[in-house]
């Protein structure tokens, strides 16, 4: 649905986007992840035709955005980083304007707009002037704008910025719901967001893609091993010695104890081996019941830091 091929954008002597290529299939929800200034917004602006690339090409629904911008833009709903709202208009007037601007032709315009309002939760402010709306509502009106005309590609630049935690959950659900029938690209620097919504993540740093995978795989690849947090009723030293005796255990690290008479431990195992059953049996035999066992996947946070550090180290060594 979206094809980006060797895209480069140069600002003065700085490379905002550096030779990026990727593809997004129909119906996929892809997250752009990266620190501020990594090139997420620039890439989105190029796909939507707001900026032109210095070199390379971007295609939406098979149409080159430079060759036939109007046809390509018909497929796209775009929520920029800063929602493009006319502050002096009412929400209703604004959405009508966007409808006409996009030249949308829905069988029932009133119903189309009211369905969108219901979906993003802005019915209560429908008749109000945008100037008087809170940041959260403005963001939602921006999202509503992107949905008008039912575009099959949605490009959302930090869609949950400025929302309170409850709204964030709501909007994420809305995006997930939308992603069932549409292709969605969203950018964020909030990691749990990607984990919650996206099927695929592109990690971008300094204008380059440094990782492209499903959130779970990304964790598995970088982590390479499994960690279990364990709480066992029994004295720490004897518990540790029992666990050390199990095949596949690589390391046992004592953690701070949270419960009286129980020891908290972090157990690292080799990648290919599931040590949970043998560990249960061994501890049961020794008479130390397991109170809690929790897998500790590396969070995207850790992955992100390790990836961007690697990237930074590489570019620095190249420069030197």
């Amino acid at each position, binding site marked *: 649905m979206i094809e980006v091929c060797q895209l480069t954008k140069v600002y003065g002597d700085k490379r905002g986007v550096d030779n990026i290529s990727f593809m997004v299939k129909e119906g996929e929800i892809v997250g752009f992840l990266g620190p501020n200034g990594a090139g997420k917004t620039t890439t989105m602006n190029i796909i939507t035709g707001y900026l032109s690339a210095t070199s390379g090409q971007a295609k939406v629904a098979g149409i080159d955005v430079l060759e036939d911008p109007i046809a390509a833009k018909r497929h796209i709903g775009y929520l920029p980083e800063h929602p493009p709202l006319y502050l002096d208009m009412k929400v209703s007037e604004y959405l009508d304007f966007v409808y006409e*601007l996009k030249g949308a032709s829905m069988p029932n315009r009133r119903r189309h707009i009211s369905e969108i309002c219901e979906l993003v939760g802005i019915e209560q402010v429908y008749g109000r002037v945008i100037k008087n709306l809170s940041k959260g509502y403005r963001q939602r009106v921006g999202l509503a704008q992107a949905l008008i005309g039912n575009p099959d590609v949605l490009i959302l630049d930090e869609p949950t910025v400025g929302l309170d935690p409850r709204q964030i959950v709501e909007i994420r659900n809305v995006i997930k719901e939308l992603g069932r029938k549409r292709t969605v690209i969203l950018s964020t620097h909030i990691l749990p967001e990607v984990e919650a919504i996206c099927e695929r993540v592109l990690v971008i740093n300094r204008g380059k893609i440094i990782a492209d995978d499903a959130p779970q795989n990304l964790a598995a690849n970088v982590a390479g091993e499994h960690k279990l947090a364990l709480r066992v009723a029994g004295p720490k030293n004897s518990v540790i010695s029992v666990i050390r005796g199990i095949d596949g255990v690589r390391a046992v690290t004592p953690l701070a104890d949270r419960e009286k008479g129980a020891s908290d431990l972090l157990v690292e195992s080799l990648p290919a081996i599931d040590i949970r059953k043998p560990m249960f049996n061994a501890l049961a035999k020794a008479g130390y019941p397991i109170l809690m066992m929790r897998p500790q996947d590396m969070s995207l946070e850790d992955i992100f830091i390790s990836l961007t550090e690697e990237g930074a180290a590489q570019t620095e060594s190249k420069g030197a």
Partner: protein
Amino acid sequence: MLAVLKRDLRGYFTSPLGYVFIAAFLVVVNTMFYMNNIMGAISDISGVFAFMQFILIFTVPLLTMRLFSEEFKQKTDQLLLTSPTSVFQIVLGKFLAALAMFTVAMLFTLLYLVIIAAFGQPNIKQVLANYIAIYCVAAAFLSIGLFLSSITENQLISAVLTMAVFLALYIIDYSGIGQYNAVLANFLYAISMFRRYSNIGRGVLAVSDLLYYISVAAIFLFLTTRVIEKKRWS
């Protein structure tokens, strides 16, 4: 294009700008009509219309200053430029919105005809010529203003620049620069915005004069389109 036209026209009325424009324009032009036609007891409105051109120096920037600069500032240009509408249609929509706003003010001047008709006989051909001419002038001025609003995201700068350009054109026309040099004089007359209008005041509605104003309008609409398109490449 229609969507942009409608939005911008409505924008004039949701802010004080449209009202200020109408008020400023009409206060001066009506006073002029009173002094010229009513006190002078003449039925020819050419004098008032010629003076209107001078008033446009100060009132056109009110209409054009924010057309693009405000879009850039509020980042709403992202909506316009990522919508399936060509840049020229957006430019044209904005230009027509400003022209429509000018028309709203001009509707009030139809009262002059009513007043003149009550006391005498307005010369319909002459009146028509004056309206056609002032519309051509307004189109040229508005497109220059629109262009100057597309090069900055600050309304005030755009307004001051527009006024400065008009005043400069006015000074060139009436300062007597080039009166000792035939080539320069011809050149200055060729680009003259204001002196050219005096032909019309004398009752000569030449196609070449109208074409001049329309060409200026077309050129600046084109330049505006280019400026907006070029932004993508920066």
